[in-house]
């Protein structure tokens, strides 16, 4: 493309920007300021992540500490639950044992009373206790 001297003169000659030129310039400046703010914060975030990227050893260490902490806490909680469950089981077993012992004692007492009263009744009727079985068989 070839431009003549007249064309260049025409293109570069002074032009009047208009009466509201200053206002338009100021408006554009304001607009640029408002658009520039989020761009600045994104830059900040990039900086934060960049810090972690720059310190991988720290990142690994902190992650490891957190994992160990959670693991130890979980183990302690599981151990606590297990001990608590064992204590409940032991208590239940002890209770059952006591109940069984009580039942045994009661059974012995009851049978002892039964024996005592049966012997007494047979003595009252002048029947020797050793013959009671025979009596029972005869009656049956």
């Amino acid at each position, binding site marked *: 493309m070839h431009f003549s001297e007249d064309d260049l003169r025409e293109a570069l000659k002074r032009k009047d920007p208009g009466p509201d030129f200053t206002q338009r310039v100021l408006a554009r400046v304001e607009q640029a300021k408002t658009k520039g703010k989020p761009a600045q914060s994104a830059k900040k975030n990039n900086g934060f992540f960049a810090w972690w990227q720059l310190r991988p050893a720290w990142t690994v260490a902190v992650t490891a500490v957190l994992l160990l902490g959670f693991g130890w806490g979980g183990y302690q909680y599981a151990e606590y639950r297990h001990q608590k469950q064992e204590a409940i089981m032991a208590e239940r077993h002890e209770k*059952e*044992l006591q*109940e*069984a*012992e*009580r*039942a*045994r*004692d*009661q*059974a*012995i*007492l*009851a*049978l*002892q*009373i*039964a*024996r*005592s*009263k*049966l*012997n*007494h*009744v*047979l*003595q*009252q*009727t002048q*029947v020797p*206790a050793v013959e*009671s*079985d025979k*009596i*029972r068989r005869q*009656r*049956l």
Partner: protein
Amino acid sequence: MNRTGRWIVQIFMAVVLCCSAARSYGQGARLQLANLDKLSDKAARVTDVTLDGSLLELAVKIIELDNDPEAAQLKDIIRSLKGIYVKSFEFDNASQYSPADVEAIRSQLTSPRWSKIVQSVDKRSHEHDEVYILKEGERVGGVVVLVAEARELTVVNIVGDVPLEKVMALENHFVPDGRHDSKHKPNKERNHDEE
């Protein structure tokens, strides 16, 4: 009510009667002794034992754990039982219980399945002792020992195939050392064996 309706009612009543009869047959050996509970306040010494099948099974298990060879006879006796119920009241004074209290027990033994095998009446000491057994075919389904003395009333109700000869031959040393659930008051226990 039409004919079909009457049939339904009759069948329903027959089923209800059968169920109640079966229930009473099943519980036949166990007596209702709750009417004697009122005597607890008057008695100087009360012995109340209520052991059903599950508790007797527990008792057998603990006896087995003891590994006491002498307890074998006790285990044999308890194993064949379904329940043991004892109510014994000893009074400081005579006439603390009424004849109606005894009659309430005796009335439960009027069924033909119950047989009175021993009866002893001593009018001088106001003593009336009875032994009943419940027959279930060739086997014994239960035993009741009723001892009514002036200052004592004892009812022993054993449910199950009671080996009486084994019970009577039970050793003395099996008596628990005061660990039973009885209400003690300062009164020396009378033991008929010592008389």
